[in-house]
């Protein structure tokens, strides 16, 4: 049995090798990339083409959408609702508001924390890094929900503030926008810290020392020396915070009563079965989101730092 295996395996490898040797280097490279290309095509590109197709199909009262039809009804409905300042505008606007607020908060905190990790050493450094990685390993739903007993009107924080005499009556953090923002910051913060820290970790720290020796105060050294060098990490952190927060589902779902775009789309699909509308709304929101990411790139790029995808 083992003899047969050890014979067929080398034979198979040899024939594979023969074919690979026969190819030129770039053909070989293509062959290696082929599975990834096929995967992205089958599981990403084609499904999205399907989504686009459904967004231009006519709605139907019998099926989830009328197959084989072409219509811009869903788009005119989405844009009509948006321009009329209806419920939809509120939902989409709210999603982008949350996305923006969360991104700003997250990047500021992440930059500070990544800097603290870079500056610390030994046990403190390990502890700080561990505190970033550990939340990533806990189920998102559960760690987000864990804010409820802390932030609710009868929760820990309100009770502390009340007993300290800082409040006369409890504040309703959850269910509320505050809760959604806190939960969403908590979800994206670890990724943002790691993105920025990975840049700071490889940064030449002598330059900061030099700035200090030349008389720059510490805050000034950070703003003028550390910040520009950290820019690639800051861009990555901003883009992922923004993209994930605009499409936020778990944090608003668990910690607030407000409708976000993601929750609304889910209702359209699973509740109302209005597939073309949901597809068109998804396409429009994606477009707006990519425009937002473009703005982030443009703004942050002006502060320096060359950004390279790879």
């Amino acid at each position, binding site marked *: 049995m083992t003899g047969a295996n050890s014979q067929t395996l080398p034979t198979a490898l040899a024939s594979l*090798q023969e074919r690979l040797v026969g190819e030129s280097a770039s053909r070989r490279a293509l062959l290696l990339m082929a599975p*990834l290309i096929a995967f992205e095509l089958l599981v990403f590109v084609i*499904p999205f083409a399907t989504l686009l197709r459904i967004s231009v199909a006519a709605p139907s009262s019998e099926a989830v959408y009328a197959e084989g039809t072409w219509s811009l009804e869903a788009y005119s409905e989405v844009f009509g609702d948006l321009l009329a300042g209806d419920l939809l505008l509120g939902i989409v606007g709210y999603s982008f508001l949350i996305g923006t607020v969360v991104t700003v908060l997250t990047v500021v905190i992440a930059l500070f924390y990544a800097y603290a990790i870079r500056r610390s050493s030994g046990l403190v450094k390990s502890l700080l890094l561990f505190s970033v990685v550990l939340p990533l390993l806990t189920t998102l739903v559960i760690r987000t929900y864990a804010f409820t007993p802390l932030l609710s009107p009868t929760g820990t924080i309100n009770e502390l503030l009340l007993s300290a005499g800082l409040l006369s009556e409890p504040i309703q953090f959850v269910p509320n926008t505050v809760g959604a923002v806190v939960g969403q910051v908590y979800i994206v913060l670890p990724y943002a810290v790691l993105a920025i820290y990975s840049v700071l970790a490889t940064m030449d720290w002598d330059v900061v020392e030099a700035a200090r020796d030349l008389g720059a105060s510490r805050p000034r050294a950070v703003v003028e020396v550390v910040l520009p060098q950290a820019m690639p990490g800051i861009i990555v952190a901003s883009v992922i915070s923004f993209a994930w927060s605009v499409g936020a589902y778990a944090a608003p779902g668990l910690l607030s009563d407000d409708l976000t775009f993601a929750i609304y789309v889910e209702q359209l699909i699973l509740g109302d079965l209005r597939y073309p509308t949901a597809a068109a709304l998804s396409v429009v929101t994606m477009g707006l989101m990519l425009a937002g990411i473009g703005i982030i790139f443009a703004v942050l790029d002006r502060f320096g730092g060359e950004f390279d995808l790879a």
Partner: protein
Amino acid sequence: MSSTLHRERLEDVAFRAGYAAVLAFLLLPLVVVVVTSFSKAGRIAFPPESYSLVWYGEFLQSARWIGAFVNSLVVGVGTALLATLLGVLGAFGQELEADAGGDGIVGAVLVPIVLLPLLVPPVILGITLLLYFNEVGLRGSYTSIVLAHTLWATPLVYFVMRSVFSRFDWQQLDAAHDLGAGPVRSFVHVVLPNVKHGIFVGGLLAFIISLQEFVMALFLSTPSTETIPVLAWTEIRQALDPMVSVVSTFLIVISVAAIALAALVTNLEWVSRQLS
């Protein structure tokens, strides 16, 4: 001069207080989860009024939770294997393409396509894949969730591997070729030993991504394939008992064990640097 020193002392105190606050923010929800898992009452409150192990007993007797646990492991391992295979081969291929002085068009198109799924809101991905898998008859299978999670995990493995490969000395590979080793043999004997830590970290990341992901899983799973986060989501919206805390505590323990393992194989700082 002394005023400068005084100011720097103040800065130091503020700096420390600042990162201690962030540290507390990051760890507090986890403390809540672990502590409430030992509560006796049927409702989550922090801190609990009385402690017991009653919910751990409940967990071990709950076929549904154990099932979700198994489902999460199956999907996580499947995702880790598939994403690692795709990511390692793809990154290696692109490195070869650049090395061979090719025009790199395939690579240039591939990078944004691999990256893009990370930026698409999971709800849209979930809906898109739900519609698509319905058409191709994959609905309700483990495969559908593994494929969806691989879409998210592959970019991470891919970029970890790109950064690992970019640090590899490619002249070693040329040397192996010159000495007569074929492509497969030279990969196994020359490249693999140098990049195996990267592959391990990539696979671990993919597994963690899968363990975490719940929006796509929510759309794609059925009661028989539901993963831990999906069941937790359903449970949290119905009952507020500490069962979810118990499950999460188990996950924290497993994850810490996994980190300890990863730290043994490599070291923590190196891991975080690879995340870029």
